[in-house]
């Protein structure tokens, strides 16, 4: 009796088992994955960055940057040479030595 019921159910449910066609289901799942949306944001970021780089080089950004850096460097050198304070340099050196010693001690 038990065996008959077993066979009956296996036959009935086996007959009713059907393969379900995908019909765009997997595409829908992939579209809704959290990373899939994040990927699009990353791609958009990269495209925007590339456009910025292209504009920067094509509009002479490199030359402008070079000139600005040169001017800043020259003015810093001029100012440093005129207002060099040996006391400040000594204090900075002492502080650096103390910090370095502490770091070495903590590592040991």
């Amino acid at each position: 009796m038990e065996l008959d019921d077993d066979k009956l159910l296996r036959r009935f449910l086996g007959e009713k088992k059907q393969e379900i066609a995908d019909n765009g289901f997997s595409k829908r799942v992939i579209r809704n994955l959290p990373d899939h949306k994040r990927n699009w944001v990353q791609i958009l970021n990269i495209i925007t960055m590339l456009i910025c780089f292209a504009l920067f080089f094509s509009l002479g950004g490199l030359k402008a940057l070079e000139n600005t850096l040169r001017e800043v460097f020259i003015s810093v050198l001029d100012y440093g040479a005129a207002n060099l304070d040996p006391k400040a340099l000594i204090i900075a050196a002492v502080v650096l030595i103390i910090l370095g010693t502490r770091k070495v001690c903590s590592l040991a």
Partner: protein
Amino acid sequence: MSQLNDISLVAQVVVLKNTKAFDQLVQKYQSPIRRFFLNQTCGDSELSDDLAQETFIKAYTSIASFKNLSSFSTWLYRIAYNVFYDYIRSRKETSDLDTREIDAINCTEQVNIGQKMDIYKSLKTLKEVERTCITLFYMEDVSIDKIAGIVGIPVGTVKSHLSRGKEKLSTYLKQNGYDGIR
């Protein structure tokens, strides 16, 4: 071989976040998982697809936790069962009904689907956990041990659900003139 292939695809998803590899897993398992939900909801295809989609998204977000202790399909069924269980719980919170009424609600009967009607009608005679055990065991050929892992209950309890479900379903089938010869 199939299991090795699954592991290789899972590894690609975990390490490289390869959505194409995950797409292959979805294509491979969409049919059994959607069928599982169709049986649980007694033929509500729209709800089944929504729950199946939720299952695959949960599988994707927690794929790193797949430890290969069971097969990928068992792991996926476990997620699917939890998704369905959460769905039932959310329905219970909105209405204070007993299990039989909940089962009746979940079985959103579909009209005009011909032969399929018989199976969903017959599955309606079972409690939700009996339905899970019966369909996994008889339709998907999942072993009792694996069903216990999927549903999260002891093997003995699975056997009791199978026995009760089998009795109810075979009685229903015999009463409705199904003898298995047709």
